[in-house]
């Protein structure tokens, strides 16, 4: 049975010169798991919000939204359609976990006993018992998002809509969240409509994928067919690079076989169809004698005297002019390491030198023209009400003329592709755009060393590709880039050297190909598929290259 039917839905924001949505039609069957994907700014959020009457955006709307065959009317119950947004932080309303779970039920005016039972039910279904009485402030991002989901679920919706719910989560928390969604869908038969840009995990469990482009439905098909139909439309369709690794490899080799979705299927696909003569891709050597941009020797750090050490004897050499990536799980000390390098935290033992000079000796000269840090949340960089004003601000402190400043702003805006964003308010643009603008501001101080904290958090595949291009260009200009990240795929594609941090220690630093080829879990999806078939194939491109060279089995 159709639970939701959208017919010819068009929408235009006030004062906008074109429609955000153009004649969108689709329907969702009861119990289906539907994934909505597309370029950021393609109208995903607008569409999802229109489906939830209470938070629908204001503007000109035409077309129909039918819920179980009926037009939604005034009495439509808020509890029937659950909605989870992207930012785990700002959705939490109250200060206690139990109160948050009860919030929606209180609004529905349910008696205490009913609320008590439903809250208990939800807490145990989602494994919240352990932190049921905690303050919401003490939860991690992943826990907050699970709490948001649980408190929506407590209202017993029959349709669950989620707008990029894992965008701000690290990969492990994101996988947990998706697993919880799958559990809801499988065990309760709840209909799920999810927009997502990290498709690796959701693709295999989705029943249907809807691709949105420029406010129109481009495709609506089962995940197995999406790859083929996208490449039918265009061989270089930008959406292709957002698909899971297995689909990308399948599409890259142009095989005429059923499309694999998971690592297991992808591996099977490669083993069955391609000859493997143990081809090994060449690994470039690290030049040993390269000058160090940053060097850490036996660095120890803890936040307070009584707290445990976060960094325990870190030793690290970052060669000049390379992209250096530090990988590691949650709480391994990645961000702390970056803050120590940036002089925001002081190591209590050991030596940190930037450009051969101890960090203690370069108090005023550490930042300008030397080192800059782009924090995880780009919003922390902006303090003015337009991007241009923000960029101007950093130049003002450098004592250069107005004309020169304008020139520099235009140059950096051209380079990062943000020229048309300059007049906008920094909060009115998408996550990926915010990041580029923040990067522009940071780069205006003309650093030689750029530190990036989780640069791929919350941005989609296109923005990632863009970021990669920017980083390569900065490297070509001689800049040293150090980034800490969870994003294995991004590190594999960008970095010259990857280091792994665990329990406050840097365990190994190597070329990405060697680094990932030697790890068996902490590695890219493409590498997990090609493991044992070809050596040192880490990225999708490399696996495709191997396939094409070795040829199909007869």
């Amino acid at each position: 049975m159709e639970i939701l039917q959208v017919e010819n839905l068009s929408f235009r924001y006030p004062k906008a010169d074109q429609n955000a949505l153009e004649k969108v039609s689709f329907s969702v069957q009861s119990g289906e798991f539907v994934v909505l994907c597309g370029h950021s700014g393609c109208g995903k959020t607008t569409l999802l919000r229109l489906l939830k009457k209470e938070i629908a955006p204001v503007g000109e709307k035409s077309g129909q939204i039918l819920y179980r065959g009926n037009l939604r009317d005034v009495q439509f119950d808020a509890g029937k359609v659950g909605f989870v947004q992207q930012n785990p932080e700002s959705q939490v309303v109250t200060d206690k976990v139990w109160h948050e779970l009860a919030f929606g039920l209180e609004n529905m005016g349910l008696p205490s006993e009913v609320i008590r039972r439903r809250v208990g039910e939800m807490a145990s279904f989602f494994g919240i018992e352990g932190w049921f009485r905690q303050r919401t402030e003490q939860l991690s991002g992943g826990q907050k998002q699970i709490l948001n989901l649980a408190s929506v679920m407590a209202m017993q919706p029959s349709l669950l809509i989620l707008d990029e719910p894992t965008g701000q989560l690290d990969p492990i928390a994101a996988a947990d969240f998706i697993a919880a969604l799958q559990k809801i869908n499988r065990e309760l038969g709840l209909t799920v409509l999810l927009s997502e840009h990290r498709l690796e995990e959701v693709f295999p469990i989705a029943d249907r994928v809807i691709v949105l482009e420029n406010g129109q439905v481009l495709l609506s098909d089962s995940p197995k067919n999406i790859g083929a139909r996208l490449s039918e439309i265009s061989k270089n369709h930008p959406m292709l690079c957002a698909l899971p690794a297995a689909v990308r490899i399948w599409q890259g080799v142009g095989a005429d076989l059923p499309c694999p979705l998971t690592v297991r299927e992808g591996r099977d696909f490669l083993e069955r169809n391609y000859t493997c003569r143990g081809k090994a891709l060449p690994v470039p050597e690290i030049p040993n004698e390269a000058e160090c941009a940053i060097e850490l020797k036996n660095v120890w750090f803890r936040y307070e005297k009584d707290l445990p050490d976060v960094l325990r004897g870190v030793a690290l050499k970052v060669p000049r002019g390379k992209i250096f990536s530090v990988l590691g799980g949650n709480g391994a000390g990645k961000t702390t390491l970056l803050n120590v390098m940036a002089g925001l935290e002081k190591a209590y033992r050991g030596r940190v030198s930037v450009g051969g000079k101890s960090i203690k000796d370069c108090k005023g000269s550490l930042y300008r023209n030397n080192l800059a840090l782009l924090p995880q949340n780009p919003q922390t960089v902006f303090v003015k009400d337009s991007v241009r004003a923000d960029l101007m601000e950093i130049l003002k402190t450098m004592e250069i003329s107005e004309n020169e400043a304008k020139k520099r702003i235009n140059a950096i805006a051209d380079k990062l592709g943000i020229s048309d964003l300059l007049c906008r308010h920094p909060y009115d643009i998408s996550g990926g755009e915010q990041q580029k603008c923040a990067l522009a501001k940071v780069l205006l101080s003309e650093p030689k060393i750029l530190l990036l904290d989780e640069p791929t958090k919350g941005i989609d595949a296109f923005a990632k590709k863009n970021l990669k291009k920017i980083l390569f260009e900065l490297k070509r200009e001689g800049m040293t880039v150090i980034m800490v990240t969870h994003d294995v795929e991004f590190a594999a594609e960008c970095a010259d050297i990857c280091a792994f941090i665990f329990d406050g220690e840097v365990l190994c630093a190597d070329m990405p190909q060697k680094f990932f080829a030697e790890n068996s879990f902490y590695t890219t999806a493409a590498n997990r598929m090609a493991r044992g078939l070809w050596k040192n194939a880490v990225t999708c491109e490399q696996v495709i290259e191997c396939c094409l060279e070795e040829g199909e089995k007869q």
Partner: protein
Amino acid sequence: MRAFANVHPAVSMTYFLSVLLISMFLPHPILQTEALIGGALFCATLKKRGRAGDIGFYLILFVMIAITNPLFSHNGVTILFFLNGNPMTFEAFLYGISLAGMVVGVLLWCKAYSEIMTSDKFLYLFGKAVPKLSLVLSTALRFIPSYLRMSRQVGRAQKAMGLYAGKSLTDRVKNRMRVLAALVAWSLENAMDTSASMKARGYGKKGRTSFSLFRFRRSDGILLGACIFLLALPIVGAALGVTEFNYYPRVDKIETSFMALVIYTALGLLSLLPFILEVKEAVLWKYYRSKI
């Protein structure tokens, strides 16, 4: 501190109010001593850390108040000695001690109050009277820590760009102003998301109920009854003048009539109640342990 912390907020609130009222408004040596001892024992069961330092603080406070009174008040008929030509009286000394006992006693009870009556209990009690208030306070309590965290993050981000990273006063003030400006924008943005999340969960509909985890159990009823009964006795006593006690011009004799003895016992029980509950629980645990 499990036993008394787990009783229903209405009961603990009634309890604290009655003890505080009696120890503040019935300046009788026996009653004060009882309240003081009860408060001290209660506090002793509350927290393990920093108790030694606390005892020192309360002792010093006690001695200070007790000594100060006779220095300034020269009422009373029994002169002990002269200091700089001023008479030091026995009555003033005793009154000082009584005053000190009252102040320290009230402080101890207030400390216990703040440990037991956490914000959620307070909200639960007074949120009923003003339903919106409890939600407003709850969201405020939620917002403040995230605001502080964001302000730290913004401060660091600005510093790492080398903007006003200096230590001079002007730099610091300027930096604060900029961080504040950024925070206003951020909190507005955040508030949009929060309000969407509230609306999406049906906030603003009529007939909102208020849920809490607290349950009023039978034991709470018994405790409340006991509390009110034990409070009523000293109040009746005060009305009849049994608990009246004067220090000036001459210290009264402590009354030992039947009525007075009953009142002393009642208040003694009342102020020792949490301690007794605590000890009972501890003993029970010991007993269960030994059976395992």
